[in-house]
């Protein structure tokens, strides 16, 4: 730490005019909350991998069915029933179109073209069905989660913000709803409305919003007595202003995290419903119904279960990784 004295000349001992404002200056570039969170998320490798797979699967769900000349219900029981997957370049991995006895299913049927994921017992292209199914699963999950989110945020927000008797009544209602096993609720609902996308979405929403409502309520309860909210009230702000300017922006991070955890939950629940036969009616497909079809043929044609199960798993893991990453990125305790 000692300094070579040669560098210090006498003239350096003149009083220097240093403005005190200098130390008030902030040198670091201005970083807003969202940018800050994004920077932090980017450092989290698992979350980035999750995000990558989600984006990839979403793109595939949109684009992939168009890459095949077959539709999801183009049957051909005669010519291309139960073809094994054949992917050029990946034959060494077993995707060579040969069945368990080593017979080339394509040669037997005289099919020239490649079915990357194979075909099912009705000769439909599984590639098309898997991605179209993914698309339907994603749509169901997304709409259901957004529905959860809207109802949950409104319900939880109102309950916490107005407090007192309002809160008391609204919380008792939630407790009663939460007390009914949601599977029973959903099954009754679907039996009542019949199968199909709309009823599945409604069924998912009817039990799904409770979690969101509870989280939002907790957050708002914590925030509404924070001094910045009190300050806004002393300035004469309306309830609306306080809710939209002060409460919602501060709960948004939590809402997004919860949303990210509800989406895989919804995907899985849809798959589960389809699996027990309450899902999307044939010939349409979802990841759940494809898994169910694959499961029935598991011992004879194992490839049929492989792809839908693989995508379902990747999707669930990816959403969970991303949600975990977001939670860390939004967590104010990690802030400097």
């Amino acid at each position, binding site marked *: 730490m000692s300094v070579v004295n040669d560098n*210090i000349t006498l003239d350096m001992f003149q009083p220097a005019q240093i403005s005190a404002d200098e130390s008030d200056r902030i040198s*670091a570039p201005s970083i807003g909350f969202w940018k800050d969170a994004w920077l932090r998320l980017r450092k989290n490798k698992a979350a980035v991998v999750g995000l990558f797979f989600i984006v990839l699967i979403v793109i595939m769900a949109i684009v992939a069915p168009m890459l095949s000349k077959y539709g999801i219900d183009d049957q051909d029981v005669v010519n291309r029933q139960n073809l094994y997957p054949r992917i050029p370049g990946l034959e060494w991995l077993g995707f060579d179109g040969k069945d368990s006895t080593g017979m080339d299913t394509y040669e037997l049927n005289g099919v020239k073209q490649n079915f990357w994921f194979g075909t099912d017992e009705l000769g439909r292209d599984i590639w098309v069905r898997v991605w179209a199914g993914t698309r339907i699963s994603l749509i169901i999950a997304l709409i259901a989660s957004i529905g959860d989110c809207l109802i949950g945020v409104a319900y939880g927000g109102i309950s916490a913000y107005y407090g007192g008797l309002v809160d008391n009544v609204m919380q008792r209602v939630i407790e009663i709803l939460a007390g009914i096993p949601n599977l029973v609720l959903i099954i009754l609902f679907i039996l009542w409305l019949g199968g199909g996308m709309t009823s599945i979405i409604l069924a998912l929403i009817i039990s799904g919003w409770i979690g969101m409502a509870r989280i939002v309520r907790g957050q708002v309860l914590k925030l509404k007595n924070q001094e910045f909210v009190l300050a806004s009230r002393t300035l004469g702000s309306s309830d609306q202003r306080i809710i939209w300017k002060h409460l919602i922006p501060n709960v948004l991070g939590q809402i997004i995290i919860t949303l990210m955890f509800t989406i895989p939950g919804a995907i899985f629940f849809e798959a589960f419903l389809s699996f027990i036969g309450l899902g999307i009616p044939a010939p349409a497909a979802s990841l759940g119904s494809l898994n169910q079809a694959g499961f029935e043929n598991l011992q004879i044609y194992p490839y049929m279960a492989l792809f839908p199960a693989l995508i379902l798993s990747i999707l669930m893991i990816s959403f969970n990784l991303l949600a975990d990453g977001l939670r860390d990125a939004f967590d104010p305790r990690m802030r400097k």
Partner: protein
Amino acid sequence: MDKLLEIKDLQVTFKTYAATVQAVRGVNLTVNKRETLAIVGESGSGKSVTSKAIMGLIPNPPGKITGGEILFEGTDLTKLSERKMQKYRGNEISMIFQDPMTSLNPTMTIGKQIAEGLRKHQGLSKSEARKRAVQLLDLVGIPNPQVRVKQYPHEFSGGMRQRVVIAIALACNPKLLIADEPTTALDVTIQAQILDLMKDLQAKMDTAIILITHDLGVVANMAHRVAVMYGGKIVETGTVDEIFYRPKHPYTWGLLSSMPKLHTRQSELLAIPGTPPDLANPPKGCPFAARCPHAMKVCTEFMPDYSDVSDTQQVACWLQDERAPKVEPPETIGVGGRTR
């Protein structure tokens, strides 16, 4: 004077995702047996980090001791394994934290919490430890210790909890007690009780105390020697009289001037303008230069060396250099709070 603890050129850094913060930048300190050393400074000056470094409690990551030694009776604590460090922690050196609410385990009785350290470090039996716990509670002035020993923390008030925390810290007769803002969370009347208790216990138990605080009143009451920290460095050390009556560093002057005096009337407080330096990007020269009314060109360029004002007082300031203009301390540093 016997040296108990000697810190040599200690450096601690914290890595955040955005920057590396040099929280402690070369601190030298000694603590003698049976004395109270106060470390004063504002938040972010590195005083708490220094104390955590002594206890081996720097969270790693993000924190790391990047240089220097902490010699406790000749043993370098920075080189010890976690296992060996545990022999010192709570036994030879113990610590009192600021918030008595969070430093006790709410699910354990007070007696168990005191006995824990005794059984681990001194190998006492269950009944011996229980007996000693009662004695300790009595020592720190808790009425009805036989009953209180079986109670849980929530059954104690804030001041009583801090007494319990002190009892736990002193259970194994440590040679060094680090008190990190021990009275900041307490009310004035309770603070007076706790300060009295600490002085009383120090006399009884011959413990050396490192007192970390920003309250100069507490320092004047408790300390024998004072180290003033600013921007991760110690800018001035001396006996308590030297620091309060003959301070040499402009920061110490500013600190004393900005305190309102209880017994005199002043029209305006002398504030230190500006904001402490950002230690993610520490200044090249003296950390106080940007806020110092006597700053010279050299101050912004080079960190001053320590110069001896007396056997006990050292100061790091270019004003001590013979080439510097003579500057008198401002009158506003007053004599503490007394009417002259």
